[in-house]
C-alpha cells in the first residue's frame, strides 16, 4: 500500500461497495451517539483518511487484546481499517524480530515524530526500576516514556494498560501501573476490557481517523460512546432482576429460564461496557447471554472486586471474626466501665457524712 493511499481506495480495491461503507459509517455514528446528519461528512473524511502510523507496545499482557482485534472470522470493514493503518511496530504481528524490530520502532518514532498513534497493551511494572519486564534489554517503563514523547495520542488497549489489570491485582508484586499513571502530557484514550471488544477498538481508531481527535471520554478515560452505560442497564435479563427472579445455581430452573444472574456473581450493575449491545463474535452473543455473569473486566481494579461468583453486594472481607471479637471486647469494656461507675459511687458514699445543725453552726463561726 502506498504511503499516500487513502482508506476509500483500499476499500474499493477490496470490493467494499459505497453502500456497505455508508452503512458502516451509519452504525459507527450511532454507536458513537453522533447525529445521522453527520454520516456523509464522516464517510467522506474517513474515505480520505491517509494511512496512520501506529506503534503498538506490548508490556505485561497476555496478547488477548491483540487476539480480540485480529480474530474476526470474516473480513469486516473493522478489520480492513486495522489493515489500513501502518502498524510500524507490534511484537506479535510484525515479521521482524530482535534488533531489527527495535530498529523499525526507532525509525518509525523518528520519521513520524509528533504524528504517530501509540497503542499500548499490558501494564507497566515500576517496582525495582521496572526490571520485571524488559524488551531487548530495555524496561517497559523506559520504552513507554520514550515512545510517548513523540506520540500524537496514546490508546491504552485492555484493562492492563488502562488500569493496571491483572498484574496490578493485590498484592501487585511487580508494582504494575497503567499508562495514565505514568504519562500525563498526552491525550490518552482507555479502551478497557479483558479483552476489549474488537469493534470498539476499531471504532475508536475509525473515530480518530475521521476526526483526527479523540472521542469524548468519561472520568476514567473511556470513550463515552462505548462505555456510557452499564451492562445491567442494557441487559436483556434486566426484567428478571426487576421482578426479583434469580438463578440460584448454574443449572437450576431459574438458570434454564434465563433469569437474572445477580446472585451468581454478575458484576453487570457496576460495569460500564457495551457487551450487551455490541456483543461479541460478530454480534453472536455476550457472556450473560451464554449463561455466565459479567465479571466486570472493563472496570478499574476489577480483580480486587471480590470473587467472580460473589454478588456485587457481598462484603469483600470476613465480617464474622471481627464481629465476634467486637462483641467480646465490647462486653469486657462494658464490665470495666460498670466497675468504674461502681467505684465512683462507692467513693461518693465514703465521702458522705451526716450534717447536723451544730456542725453548720461550727462552720459559720469559722
Amino acid at each position, binding site marked *: 500500500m502506498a504511503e499516500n493511499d487513502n482508506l476509500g481506495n483500499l476499500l474499493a480495491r477490496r470490493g467494499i461497495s459505497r453502500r456497505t461503507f455508508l452503512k458502516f459509517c451509519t452504525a459507527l455514528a450511532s454507536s458513537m451517539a453522533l447525529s445521522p446528519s453527520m454520516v456523509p461528512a464522516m464517510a467522506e473524511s474517513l474515505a480520505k483518511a491517509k494511512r496512520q502510523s501506529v506503534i503498538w507496545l506490548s508490556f505485561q499482557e497476555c496478547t488477548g487484546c491483540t487476539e480480540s482485534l485480529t480474530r474476526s472470522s470474516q473480513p469486516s470493514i473493522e478489520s480492513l481499517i486495522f489493515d489500513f493503518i501502518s502498524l510500524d511496530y507490534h511484537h506479535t504481528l510484525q515479521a521482524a524480530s530482535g534488533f531489527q524490530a527495535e530498529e523499525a520502532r526507532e525509525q518509525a518514532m523518528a520519521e513520524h515524530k509528533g504524528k504517530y498513534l501509540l497503542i499500548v497493551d499490558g501494564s507497566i511494572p515500576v517496582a525495582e526500576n521496572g526490571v520485571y519486564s524488559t524488551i531487548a534489554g530495555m524496561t517497559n517503563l523506559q520504552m513507554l516514556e520514550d515512545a510517548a514523547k513523540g506520540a500524537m495520542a496514546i490508546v491504552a488497549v485492555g484493562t492492563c494498560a488502562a488500569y493496571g489489570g491483572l498484574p496490578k491485582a493485590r498484592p501487585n508484586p511487580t508494582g504494575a501501573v497503567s499508562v495514565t499513571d505514568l504519562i500525563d502530557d498526552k491525550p490518552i484514550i482507555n479502551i478497557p476490557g479483558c479483552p476489549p471488544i474488537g469493534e470498539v477498538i476499531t471504532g475508536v481508531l475509525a473515530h480518530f481517523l475521521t476526526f483526527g481527535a479523540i472521542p469524548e471520554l*468519561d*472520568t*476514567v478515560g473511556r470513550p463515552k460512546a462505548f462505555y456510557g452505560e*452499564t451492562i445491567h*442497564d442494557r441487559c436483556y435479563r434486566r426484567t428478571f*432482576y*426487576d*421482578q*426479583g427472579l*434469580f438463578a440460584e445455581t448454574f443449572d437450576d430452573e431459574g438458570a434454564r429460564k434465563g433469569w437474572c444472574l*445477580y*446472585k451468581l456473581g454478575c458484576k453487570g*450493575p*457496576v460495569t*460500564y461496557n457495551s457487551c450487551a449491545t455490541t456483543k461479541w463474535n460478530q454480534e453472536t452473543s455476550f457472556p450473560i447471554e451464554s449463561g455466565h455473569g459479567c465479571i466486570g473486566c472493563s*472496570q*478499574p*481494579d*476489577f480483580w*480486587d*472486586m*471480590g470473587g467472580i461468583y*460473589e*454478588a*456485587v*453486594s*457481598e*462484603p*469483600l*472481607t470476613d*465480617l*464474622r471474626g*471481627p*464481629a465476634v*471479637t*467486637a*462483641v467480646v*471486647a*465490647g*462486653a469486657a*469494656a*462494658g*464490665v470495666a*466501665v*460498670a466497675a468504674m*461507675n461502681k467505684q465512683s459511687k462507692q467513693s461518693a458514699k465514703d465521702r458522705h457524712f451526716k450534717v447536723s445543725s451544730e456542725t453548720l453552726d461550727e462552720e459559720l463561726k469559722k
Partner: protein
Amino acid sequence: MDTALLIWAKSTGLQWATIIMLLGLTMRVIQILLLGRATDLSEARNSDVMSAGIKTIFRRFVPPQGMLQKGLLVYLSGYIFHIGFFIVLLFFVPHIQLIDSTLGISWPGLRSSLIDAITVVTLLALIVLLLHRVWNPVLKLLSTPEDYLTWALTFLPLLTGYMAYHHMLFEYNTMLALHVLSVEALMIAIPFSKLSHMVTLFLARWYNGAIAGRKGVQS
C-alpha cells in the same frame, strides 16, 4: 465510578463500621445491665414481673389513647419511616444477598420496583418529620444538633441507595460507594447517639413495665 472507593467501602470500611457498632452497642448494653438498682424492700403485688415487662415492650408500639388524633401526621410518618426503612433494609434482594453471605440465612425478597416505591414513601415521611421539627416552635426549641445529625444519617442511606439505583448525580459505582459509606456512618453513630434506642428501647420498656408490674399496675 471510583472502584477503589467502592472496594474500600466494601472491605476495610465495612469491617471497621461493624466492629465499632457491635463493640459500642455491647458495651452500652452491658453497662446498662450492670447499673443495678436499689433493692425494692416492698412486697411485690404481682409475682409475674417478667411478663409484665415483656407486655409493655409490645404495648408501647401502639400509641396511647387520644395521642393518635393529636399528632396524626407525626405518628403516621414515624410508623411509615420505621417500617419502610426495615422493609427496604431486609427485603431488597442485594441486601438479602449480603446477609446470606455473612450470616448464612436468607428469605425471599421483594421486586425492586416495589422497594423503589417504598423508598420514596420512606424518604417523604422523613422529610415530613424534619419539616415538623423545624416548623413546630416547641419541638424546634427542644431539638439539638444531634437530632438533625441522626436524621441525616438515617436519610442518607435511603437517598444514596435510591440515587444509585436510578443513576443520579454520579455514575453507579461512585454512588454505590457513597451508599455503602453512608450506611457505615450510620452504623458507627448508632451506639453513641440516640439511635442506640434500636436496642435500648427494649431494655427501657421492659424496665418500665416490670416496675409497674411489681406495683400491680399496667404500664
